[in-house]
């Protein structure tokens, strides 16, 4: 593989990664897709899931993203994630604890509380992050 792909992943909190890589696999809303160097211009929304960065055939980095966008231009791949965390830095126990806390909050709410949907979404996010961690 001669050409390298310029890949950057940013979330509102910070720029998580920026650099040259071989191959990136990202979770699009309509299915996972891989990006190599010189990919055709392409833009898609992302679902919650793992972005994998590959060097050759080995997975170098796994980043969990919560929704967002991927934008591929001739200049490379940019992922705008609403929230992103390096999977290596996340502990299963922490996620589990936060899941339980969120669940308790949901249960304490009235049936038609407006914040219910937000909390539920947060719970789903944590659940999928945990699933990604266990694998």
């Amino acid at each position, binding site marked *: 593989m001669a050409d390298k792909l310029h890949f*950057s992943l*940013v*979330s*509102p*909190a*910070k*720029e998580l990664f920026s650099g040259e890589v071989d191959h990136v696999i990202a979770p*699009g*809303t*309509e299915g996972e897709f891989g990006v190599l160097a010189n990919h*055709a*211009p*392409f*833009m*898609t*929304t992302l679902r919650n899931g793992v972005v994998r960065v590959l060097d050759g055939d080995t997975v170098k980095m796994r980043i969990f993203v919560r929704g967002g*966008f991927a*934008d591929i*231009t*001739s*200049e490379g791949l*940019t992922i*705008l994630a*609403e929230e992103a965390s390096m999977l290596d830095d996340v502990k299963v126990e922490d996620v589990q604890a936060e899941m339980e806390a969120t669940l308790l909050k949901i249960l304490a709410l009235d049936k038609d509380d407006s914040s219910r949907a937000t909390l539920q979404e947060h719970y789903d996010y944590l659940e999928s992050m945990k699933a990604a961690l266990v694998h």
Partner: protein
Amino acid sequence: MPSLKDLKNRISSVKSTQKITKAMQMVAAAKLKRAQDAATAARPYAERMAAVLANLSASAGASGPKLLTGTGSDQTHLVVVMTAERGLAGGFNTYTAKLAKQTISALQAEGKTVKVLTVGKKGREQLKREFESLFIGHIDLSAVKGDDFSESAITLGKSLTARYEDGEFDVATLIYSQFKNVLTQVPTAQQLIPASAPADTGTVDLSGAIYRYEPSEAAILETLLPRYINTQVLSAMLESSAGEQASRMTAMDNATRNAGEMIDSLSLQYNRARQAQITKELIEIISGAEAL
């Protein structure tokens, strides 16, 4: 001529004021560092987002969603004024409020309907006298811990989008203090809705290649635009908070220096008065001795 005791009291009172301003300056400096880091960290996201939006809107043209193209009218303006929760920050809040007043008056002079939404207590207080009838809402930032503005930004962004969808206004302008560096904060008016990508973000030249969209261009725009507005609001909040701390730091630095000067001149006065008293007493003793 104040008595020695008066002077002594004043010196000690100025000294304790100086201690307070010094402490406030150091607190502001520490907070500034954090606020500045947060503002810098958020910048790449905002920039990339603007670039993506510029690409999209260039190809979407006039058929895009309402958030991008506008309602076709510009009769009702919403002015969002973003200031700090706390004062004692030099001219920080005043300058932003001044720009807000000018903007509102200019719009009213053009015969537009103006609504005002305030963020932060200080700006609300300053605008209250003239424009209270125009207020439609207020966002309180006092509960924000540290520099985690993301929740408030999303709340504000969502309420803006919802109000826009309800047809409450046609154009939204955000007035906030842009953080240039520690010494300069520039009050800025920025149009939020209809969303416009900043002119200086160049679109990527695709050299004739066709963009592919998944699921579809319209669907992407629909999810992107509200987020873009949230991002704009968030970065404005971060810049404003960094500016507030910088401004407070500078103001308190000046105050500490002024207090120092005051202490010097009061000490001089005190020493002179004391010397004068000693001289007077000596003269009295000597002339008393001579008279004998």
